[in-house]
C-alpha cells in the first residue's frame, strides 16, 4: 500500500541566467530510505534547499505536499516545525559547547528562561543511546571525532521529533567504520518509522541502504529506480547520472616507468601534540619516472601525515628519515625547499589548504610559482593571463574566464584549478591526496586522464586514496599503510581489494 510522506511536483527554480531545477518531481514513501543521485551541479542541493525552506515559498514554481498536506515553507524554521530536518555536509555544531548543549541549541530545555541542566543532560543521554553514542553528554563537541559529531547531528534531529531526515553526503568525511555505523543507524531509524533522504556520491552505500533512488541530471529528474528489484547496480546508476554508459570508470593506460625519481627512507613522524606517538613509523617508499604509485590505508593510518611531513615538514614533530631525489639526498624541511626539490603536494582539503576561495582562477594557478612570471619582483600580468587561459582550456575548467572566483566553482572544477596550480609549478614528483574526493563521476574520469598524461610526461605520481577501486584502476603499484607502517608493496597485476584490505588492517588486528 502506498503511503507517500513527501511529494514535490514540477519544481522549477531559476537563478539569474541559470535554470537550476526544471520540473523536478519526486515522491518519497513513508518509512523508506530514498537516495538522490546526480553529478555535482545537477541540482540535488538546490532541491533540498527548496524543500527545507532555505529558498522560501514563492521563489520557485511547483508544489510540495508533506504528510498529506500542501505546505508553503517560508524559512527553515517552518520546515523543522513540520518535522523535516536537514543535516548538511558541513556539520553545524558549535565546537566549544557540550554534546547536550548542541543537541538542544535553539530548543533549550528551559523553565521560565532558565536552562534545566538536569533535564538537558538526561534527555540528551537518552538520545545518544538511540544513535549508539556512548559518550558523556557534557563532553565538548571539539573533543569527539567527526564521525561522532555526525551522530550528534542526528541526535539533534531526533530531539526535534523528526519525520523526514535529509542527509547531505553524510559519510563524505567519515572512515569506513564510522560510515558503516552511520548507515546501520539510518536503517535502524527506518524501522522506527523515520523516513530518510540521503544524498551521496558513494554508490556502494546507496546500493547497500536505499530502497529507492531518484536520479537528477542537469536540473531535471531523470528516473526513480526501485533498489529491491535486484536489477539496479552501480553501473546502472552511473548510466543514469551521466546520461550515457561509461565504458570504463578509468581510462586505459600503459605506464613505462624509468629511473627512480624519489625515494623516502626510514621516514618517522611524531604527533605534533602527543610527541611520544609515532604517526608514521619507519616508512620507506619510492616512485620512478612515469610511474603512478598508490598509497592505500584506512583513515588514521597516517597517509596524509606522511605526505605532508615530506612536503616541507608541514605536519608533525620529531621528523626523521631521508629523502633522495634521483639518488641524491635533498632537504625538504620547508615548503619552498620541497618545491625547489621538485615535489608538489595536492591537498585532500582543497577549500582549506588548496585554494584562496575569494581570489580568481588566474591568481590561484600562478600562486605556487609566481617567480616564473615575475621580473625584479613584479608579476607580468599578460603572461599570467596567457598561462591561466592555457590551463583553463587544457584542463577543461568550466568557467567563463580566468577571472572567475574559485569559490564559485564546483568541486571538480576547483580540483582542476589546484591541479593546474601544481602543474604550472612543474614539479617532478606530484603527491595527490584524495584527488577525486567529493567530485562527480565525469570529472573523476577527467582527473584520471590528467594523472595519466602527467605520468606519460615522465613525472612520478603518488596517489593517496581511501577508495580502493580508484587505486586499483589507475596505479601501477600500491603501498599499503597501517598505523604508520608500510605493510606491503603490491604491483597492480597482483593487487586485489581483499588482499590490500588485509595489509591495511595488519596492525589494527595485532592491537586488538
Amino acid at each position, binding site marked *: 500500500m502506498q503511503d507517500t510522506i513527501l511529494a514535490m511536483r514540477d519544481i522549477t527554480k531559476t537563478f539569474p541566467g541559470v535554470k537550476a531545477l526544471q520540473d523536478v518531481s519526486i515522491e518519497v514513501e513513508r518509512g523508506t530510505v530514498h537516495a538522490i543521485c546526480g553529478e555535482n551541479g545537477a541540482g540535488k542541493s538546490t532541491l533540498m534547499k527548496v524543500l527545507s525552506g532555505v529558498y522560501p515559498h514563492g521563489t520557485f514554481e511547483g508544489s510540495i505536499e508533506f504528510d498529506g498536506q500542501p505546505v508553503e515553507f517560508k524559512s527553515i524554521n517552518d520546515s523543522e516545525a513540520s518535522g523535516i530536518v536537514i543535516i548538511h555536509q558541513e556539520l553545524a555544531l558549535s565546537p566549544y559547547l557540550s554534546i547536550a548543549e548542541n543537541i538542544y541549541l535553539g530548543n533549550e530545555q528551559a523553565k521560565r528562561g532558565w536552562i534545566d541542566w538536569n533535564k538537558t543532560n538526561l534527555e540528551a543521554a537518552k538520545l545518544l543511546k538511540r544513535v549508539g553514542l556512548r559518550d558523556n553528554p557534557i563532553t565538548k563537541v571539539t573533543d569527539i571525532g567527526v564521525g561522532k559529531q555526525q551522530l550528534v547531528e542526528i541526535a539533534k534531529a531526533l530531539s526535534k521529533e523528526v519525520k523526514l531526515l535529509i542527509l547531505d553526503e553524510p559519510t563524505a568525511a567519515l572512515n569506513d567504520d564510522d560510515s558503516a555505523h552511520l548507515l546501520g543507524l539510518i536503517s535502524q531509524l527506518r524501522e522506527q518509522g523515520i523516513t530518510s533522504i540521503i544524498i551521496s556520491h558513494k554508490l556502494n552505500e546507496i546500493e547497500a541502504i536505499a530502497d529507492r533512488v531518484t536520479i537528477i541530471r542537469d536540473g531535471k529528474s531523470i528516473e526513480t529506480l526501485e533498489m529491491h528489484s535486484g536489477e539496479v547496480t552501480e553501473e546502472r546508476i552511473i548510466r543514469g547520472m551521466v546520461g550515457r554508459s561509461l565504458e570504463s570508470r578509468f581510462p586505459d593506460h600503459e605506464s613505462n616507468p624509468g629511473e627512480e625519481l624519489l625515494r623516502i627512507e626510514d621516514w618517522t613522524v611524531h604527533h605534533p601534540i602527543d610527541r611520544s606517538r609515532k604517526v608514521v613509523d619507519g616508512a620507506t617508499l619510492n616512485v620512478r619516472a612515469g610511474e603512478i604509485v598508490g598509497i592505500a590505508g584506512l583513515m588514521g593510518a597516517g597517509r596524509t601525515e606522511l605526505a605532508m611531513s615530506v612536503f616541507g615538514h608541514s605536519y608533525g614533530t620529531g621528523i626523521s628519515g631521508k629523502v633522495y631525489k634521483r639518488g641524491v639526498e635533498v632537504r625538504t624541511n620547508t*615548503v619552498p625547499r620541497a618545491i625547489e626539490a621538485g615535489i608538489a603536494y595536492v591537498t585532500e582539503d582543497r577549500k582549506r589548504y588548496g585554494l584562496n576561495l575569494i581570489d*580568481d582562477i588566474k591568481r590561484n594557478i600562478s600562486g605556487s610559482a609566481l617567480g616564473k612570471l615575475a621580473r625584479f619582483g613584479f608579476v607580468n600580468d*599578460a603572461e599570467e*593571463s596567457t598561462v591561466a587561459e592555457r590551463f583553463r582550456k587544457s584542463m577543461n575548467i568550466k568557467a*567563463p574566464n580566468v*577571472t572567475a572566483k574559485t569559490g564559485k566553482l564546483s568541486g571538480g572544477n576547483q580540483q582542476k584549478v589546484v591541479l593546474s596550480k601544481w602543474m604550472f609549478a612543474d614539479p617532478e614528483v606530484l603527491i595527490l591526496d584524495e584527488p577525486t574526493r567529493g567530485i562527480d563521476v565525469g570529472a573523476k574520469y577527467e582527473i584520471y586522464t590528467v594523472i595519466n598524461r602527467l605520468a606519460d610526461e615522465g613525472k612520478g605520481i603518488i596517489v593517496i586514496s581511501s577508495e580502493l577501486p580508484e587505486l586499483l584502476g589507475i596505479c601501477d603499484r600500491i603501498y599499503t599503510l597501517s598505523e604508520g607502517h608500510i605493510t606491503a608493496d603490491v604491483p597492480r597485476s597482483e593487487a586485489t581489494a581483499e588482499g590490500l584490505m588485509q595489509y591495511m588492517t595488519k596492525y589494527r588486528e595485532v592491537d586488538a
Partner: protein
Amino acid sequence: MSAPTGLDKPPVDTKPAKPPTSGVLSYLTGQLSQVGLFIALIAIVVFFQITTDGITLKPINISNLIIQNSYILILAVGMVMVIIAGHIDLSVGSIVAFIGAVAGVMITKWDLPWPLAVVLCLVVGGLVGAWQGYWVAYFGIPAFIVTLGGMLAFRGAAQIVLDNKQIAPFPDGFRDLGSGFLPTFGSSGYEPLTMILGVLASLALVASAFRQRRERRKYDLESEPLWWFVAKQAFAVALIMLVTVQLASYDGTPIVLVILGLLVVGYTAVMSRSVFGRHIYAIGGNLSAAQLSGVKAKSVTFWLFVNMGVISALAGLVYTAGLNLANPSAGNGFELDAISAVFIGGAAVTGGIGTIPGAIIGGLIIGILNNGMSILGVGTDWQQLIKGLVLLAAVAFDFYNKRRRGGL
C-alpha cells in the same frame, strides 16, 4: 573585489553574461559596489559645497583639506596592506607621537641636520615595526594584542623622550614637509608647475588605464563597455583637473600631496603587480593554502609590519612638521581614522580583500566630513557620532552588495 587596482576593474561574475537588452541602468547597478564609493564621495562633497555656501571647494580649503588629512591618508596606505593580510595595527597613532618626539629631540636638542634626522626617524620607524612584526610573525601573537601593547608602550615612550613637554619650533626646511609648497612660477593666474603636474598625472592615469584595457581585451577578459570606460576616465581626469586648477589658483602644489602621490602610485603597483603584494593577498585570503603553496608567510608578515612602521614614521614626520610642534599626545586616535578609512574603502575584516585607491577614497570621505562639519560649526560630539554612523553605513552597504550579487 580582489582587483587591487580597484578603480578600473569590474568584478567578473561566473554567471553567463546578461543579455544586451538589459541596458545601461542594470549595468550600472551591477557596478554599484565599485561606483558606490565614488558616488558617496561626490554626494558628500556636493552636500557640503551647498551647505557651506561654496567654501568647501574654494582653493584655500582644498589646499587645507590635503594638508590636514595627509597623515591619515599616508597611514591608510600602510593600514590597508596590514588589513588585507588579515592583521591590524592599533599602534600607529602612538608611533606618530613617538617619531615626532624623536624628530624633535634630534633636530632641536642634538642639532642634527633635518634631512639626516628624517632618514634616522624612518629607520627608527622601521625598527619599531620590526619589533612588532617579530612578535606577530615569528611568535604568533595576534596583531591585535601586539599592537595594543605597542599603542600603550609607544605613547609612553613618546612622553619619556619628550619628558612630558612639547618641543617647538622646527627649522623651515623641515616644516615644509608638512605645510610647504613646491616652488611657484609666475605671479598671477594659474601657477604653471601645478598645472603641468596635474596634466601629467591625468595623462599617466588615462594611459595606464588604456594599456590595461588593451591587455585585458587581448585575453578576452574585458566585460566593460567602451562608454563606461570612457566615462570613468573622463570623470577621473575631471576630478584631478578640478583639484589642480584650484591648487594652481592658490599657493601651488603642497609637498605632502607629492609625497602622498608617490606613495599611492608606488604601493598600488606593489599590491597589484609585485610578488610581495600577491603574497599579502594570498595569506589574507587563505593562510594555510598560501603556506602550502610555498609562500613564506612569516617573512611576509614581518616585512609588512616593518613597512607599516616606516609609513607611520613618515606620517609622524609630516604631522610634526605641519604643526611645527612635537607633542607627546599627538596622533591620538589616528589609528581609528586610518582603520575606518580602510574599511570604508571596501576592505574585508577577514582579510584578503581591499585596495589602496579604495582606502584613499575612504580617507578622503572621512577628511571631507571632518572639514565640512568643522566649517559648519558642528561640535566634535556630533562629528564623532556622524563619523561612526558613516563607517557603519559604508560597511553595511558593502555587505548588502555582496549578498545581492550572491557573493561568497
